[in-house]
């Protein structure tokens, strides 16, 4: 799992709004960084890293909620929730298949048929989960989300300066 990047220049005595701007900016960059090549069904860790980056970003936005204007905040949170849901749909299947393959390898050959059919059944759902994900990780879609995030960061920065 990709580790959260440290946020520079954070201090307990700075304003909540200034901290919000700095932290959200870093977590938004992380999301952008992990949004590439997630549709490759052979590279399961990329989906996982983007899912974690999405969760972290959503979590910090929720922590700093009062620092952002309500409507744009809600819109970004809704988008991140949708994104997390479709990433989860892919990731959950990746994890189940990996676990089942390990389990099947320990079984006697004659006992594997049912588990192998179950793996095929879950595997057949992955392209469907990928289709839902594909609509949300286009360059244009991610760029639009980043733009909205940059607007939230700018509002928080301005609020921090006014304090």
């Amino acid at each position: 799992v990709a580790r959260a990047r440290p946020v520079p220049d954070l201090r307990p005595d700075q304003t909540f709004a200034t901290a919000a701007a700095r932290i959200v900016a870093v977590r938004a960059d992380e999301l952008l960084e992990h949004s590439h090549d997630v549709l490759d069904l052979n590279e399961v860790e990329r989906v996982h890293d983007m899912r974690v980056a999405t969760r972290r970003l959503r979590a910090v936005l929720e922590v700093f909620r009062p620092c952002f204007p309500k409507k744009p905040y809600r819109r970004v949170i809704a988008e991140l929730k949708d994104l997390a849901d479709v990433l989860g749909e892919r990731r959950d299947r990746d994890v189940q298949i990996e676990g089942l393959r390990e389990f099947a390898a320990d079984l006697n050959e004659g006992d594997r048929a049912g588990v192998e059919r179950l793996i095929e059944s879950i595997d057949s759902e992955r392209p469907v989960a990928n289709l839902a994900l594909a609509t949300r990780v286009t360059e244009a879609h991610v760029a639009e989300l980043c733009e909205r995030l940059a607007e939230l960061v700018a509002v928080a920065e301005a609020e921090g300066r006014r304090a």
Partner: protein
Amino acid sequence: MKAKKVKGLEPRGTLRDNAARIVSVRLAELRSFVPAAMGRDEGDAQHDMRIAAKRLRYVLETVGLCFGEVADTARQGAREVQTVLGELHDCDVLIETVERYTSEEGAPPTDRGLEVLVTRTVQRRDQLHADFQSLWSRLDGEAVWNRLAAAAEDGTSA
């Protein structure tokens, strides 16, 4: 599970003051699942408690710098709770997946491999449940949550 709203947050107040309020609420939320989530078959409460642990972990990742070393210990503790309850939930989901798969129209009959899968998953879930109980006792015994609550109440490093 919807997160409880944190009252009294001030964008122009200090990070430390606001962080103290958030940590207090998220910690109380996590602790509110005990004893309910301790029961063997309390899958829903355990799932909600995992989400509460995840929220506290992310809050501490974000604002832990306001509370010193105790925040690192608590963040690690929340991460462990999240992990063990996550694995436990994965077992519940896998059992449900197998049950759904084998009950679908036209599904092949359950064979020995699938039976062993369910049996072993139930055993693993029981082990994870025992691990969760031990972990919570250890964290409680080390006063991890009490120290974090005190640090948040002081609003200063513990």
